[in-house]
């Protein structure tokens, strides 16, 4: 058994920022990661990271950043947390610059900033159009510099508890197939979002939400799971992200009549309205027959000119060429909305603490909440560094006064996990075993069709029922047709599928209960925001029969809810 003061689960941006902070505060810290850290989905973030540096417009301020975030969130964000987040942003980004992030520069050598959706000022700092890659690699590099311990290619399968307290994890080493126990005084979950519960997503194959499920199973509630961001512009066919930067730099959206249809939906902000509004607008154009092939609209960046495209959007140009056969310098890019971001997650306070002692969370798997009902572009990388740091801080200071866990609970947890794996492998030998990949695909279809951009009572009730039946089939009948120890990908995928189904059920149940439309949660049967009854956070607690929902008021400090117009 390995023992550490702080164990971070997840080697993406939030996890590494937490680990760096814990290391700098003197904790004995290790990172346990499903993939080598530089493979984490954080590298796929494109457009940028927000901070009111005022390099492009000196009148910008952290208060404006906070307000834009709260308005973008459709007033569901906790305003005390957002204020601290926007204030911290400036120092966190300058620190990234000191650590070596290859930020794009202004003529006089300062960090360049570009306009982004829902922001009143050009506030988004960027490294061309692969900012996530730049920031993520820099954090990994700094982790190497600091000598942080890494356990790579290990998948956490269970949070181990002693009484009420989380004291470590049981993980499977993918290379050997062996179960391993990791004891820690504090465990930080930083396992990313749940994009793969949807059929169409920009997220990497490993953004399954499995880490959320582990915390949920261990007793931590999931907050605001019904708020799922659908990115307006994903590449038709593969749903690879086409960054908001394409619109920030001047790209326009056109329907099959050549109209800039955003004039109908957000006359002032046009293409730079927040993502939920643009995504619904595109979807509506397509549903009403003004799309192409009944599937997509055009994103036209040809007006930017070749030089600007190659300087500011080189990755977008290449992705469109490689994956859609479109040369974006001369022709429009076919785009459609797809799942992009999970606003909800493991419920934490603004210091990364969950209500379960010993358990912390940060990044997309967590919900503070600063994104509320809709996240603004450029705010997720920021969330990872601001709250990653804070979670690392809390975990290391709490760990200093905690005691080392006993080994008893780990033996029991390993036996439980072994039994789970044993059942999956054993059933794999039977002819009638359910293929976990098929169960996963069914869940993804249900989520996209019934818990998608437009939702209603009938669809959501059906979705909950179907997900419960998929859940039953998984636990009673799923089998893996691969029994080897070494790098058993199908086994890992089958285990994760069990977690994904419960996360999907939390999303669908929260959406069914919330009878209003707010931010990314749009109910065609309740199309208005209802502050009187629904200005509150959803908390889902796990039970085997489905989530039990509770609610908590939103923290309002200085910005009372107003109508949200763009």
């Amino acid at each position, binding site marked *: 058994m390995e023992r550490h003061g702080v164990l971070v689960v997840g080697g993406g941006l939030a996890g590494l920022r937490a680990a760096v902070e814990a290391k700098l505060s003197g904790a004995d810290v290790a990172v346990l990661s499903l*993939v*080598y850290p*530089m*493979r984490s*989905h954080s*590298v*796929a973030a494109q457009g940028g990271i927000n901070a009111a540096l005022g390099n492009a417009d000196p009148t910008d301020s952290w208060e404006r950043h906070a307000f834009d975030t709260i308005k973008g969130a459709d007033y569901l964000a906790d305003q005390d947390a957002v204020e601290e987040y926007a204030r911290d942003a400036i120092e966190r980004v300058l620190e990234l*610059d*000191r*650590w*070596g992030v*290859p930020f*794009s*520069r202004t*003529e*006089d*050598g300062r960090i360049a900033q570009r306009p982004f959706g829902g922001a009143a000022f050009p506030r988004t700092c960027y*490294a*061309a159009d*692969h900012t996530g*890659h*730049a920031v993520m*690699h820099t954090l990994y*590099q*700094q982790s*190497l*510099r600091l000598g942080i311990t890494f356990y790579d290619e290990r998948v956490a399968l269970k949070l181990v508890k002693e009484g009420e307290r989380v004291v470590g994890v049981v993980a499977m080493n993918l290379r050997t197939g062996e179960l391993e126990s990791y004891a820690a005084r504090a465990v930080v979950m930083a396992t990313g979002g749940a994009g793969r519960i949807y*059929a*169409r997503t920009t997220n*990497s*194959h490993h953004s399954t939400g499995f880490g959320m499920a582990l915390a949920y199973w261990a007793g931590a509630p999931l907050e605001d799971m019904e708020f799922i961001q659908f990115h307006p512009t994903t590449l038709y*066919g*593969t*749903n690879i992200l086409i960054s908001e930067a394409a619109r920030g730099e001047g790209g326009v959206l056109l329907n099959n009549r050549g109209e800039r249809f955003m004039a109908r939906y957000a006359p002032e902000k046009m293409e730079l309205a927040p993502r939920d509004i643009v995504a619904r607008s595109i979807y509506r154009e*397509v549903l009403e027959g003004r799309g192409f092939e*009944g*599937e997509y609209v055009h994103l036209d960046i040809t007006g930017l000119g070749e030089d600007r495209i190659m300087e500011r959007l080189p*990755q977008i140009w290449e*992705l469109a060429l*490689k*994956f*859609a*056969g479109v040369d974006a310098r001369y022709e429009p890019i076919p785009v*459609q909305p797809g799942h992009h971001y999970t606003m909800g997650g493991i419920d934490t306070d603004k210091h990364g603490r969950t209500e379960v002692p010993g358990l912390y969370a940060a990044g997309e798997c967590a919900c503070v909440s600063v994104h509320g009902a809709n996240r603004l572009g450029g705010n997720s990388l920021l969330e990872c560094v601001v709250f990653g740091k804070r979670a690392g801080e809390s975990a290391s200071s709490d760990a200093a006064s905690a005691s080392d866990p006993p080994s008893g609970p780990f033996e029991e947890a390993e036996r439980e996990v072994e039994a789970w794996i044993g059942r999956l492998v054993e059933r*794999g030998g039977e002819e009638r075993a359910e*293929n976990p*990949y*098929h169960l*996963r*695909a*069914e869940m*993804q*279809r249900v989520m996209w*069709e019934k818990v998608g951009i437009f939702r209603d009572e009938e669809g959501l009730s059906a979705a909950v029922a179907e997900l419960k039946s998929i859940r039953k089939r998984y636990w009673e009948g799923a089998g893996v047709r*691969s029994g*080897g120890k*070494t*790098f058993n*990908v*199908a086994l890992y995928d089958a285990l994760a599928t069990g977690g994904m189904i419960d996360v999907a059920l939390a999303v669908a149940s929260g959406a069914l209960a919330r009878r209003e439309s707010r931010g990314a949660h749009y109910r065609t049967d309740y199309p208005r925001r209802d502050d009187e009854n629904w200005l509150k956070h959803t908390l889902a607690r796990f039970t085997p029969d489905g989530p039990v929902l509770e609610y908590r008021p939103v923290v309002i400090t200085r910005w009372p809810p107003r109508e949200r117009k763009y």
Partner: protein
Amino acid sequence: MRVEGEGGGAGVPAGGSGETVVFRVRRYDPESGVGPYYQEYEVPYRPGMTVLDGLLHILREVDQTLSLRYSCRQKICGSCAMLINGRERLACETQVAEVGRTVTMEPLPHLPVIKDLVVDVEPFLDKMKASMPYLIPRSDSENIRVPPEEFERYRVASDCIWCAACYSACPAAYSNPYYLGPAALGQLFRFEVDSREDPSVKPLRLVIADDDCAGVWRCHQAHACSEVCPKHINPGELIAELKREVLRARISGRI
């Protein structure tokens, strides 16, 4: 609207035409007691399909014992570098139509095989780590300004995704176990020219680059690295630049 389950292209119809391609995969399972062999799979073809799409079809529908690494499917995470029809490529960005009706997939050469298409990347990572692939911040780094021409020098090198394709393709790295290889030397260059780093570290970087066994002089300029780099970084040219830096430092007596 039509929604397929998770696949390569959620919105693009799968199969349909009945057209198929042959995927020839080099299999090896250390637990089996059998040496490596090639296994052929018939995979339904659709326009726009990538090699990764085909491999995932095999894993999900045909043979769950297949092992491979993959994640982002958009050529930014570097997980799925492998040998495809004899050349290092990322499976996620390689169109089946580009490589032919029969596609042969093998693990990256020059790294030990763990299972099937999964190699042990630790030897590659050891070389990366030996090149100090991190910036050591200056103590006086308030108010940073980076001149655009300096930014241009490290911009391309910092695009590296650590996929190991170049290391696998490099004949010098293949024949000399001490040679750091193209990706690691590219990182050495990337930080050497970054003025945000503590200047006292710079000579150390050049001394590493100048190492007779591990450094730039072991590059024979085959430029295989530049041929295969999926990010078009041209590590061969970065190494040539690093050689010039080393020579300038020697002449000026800095090292």
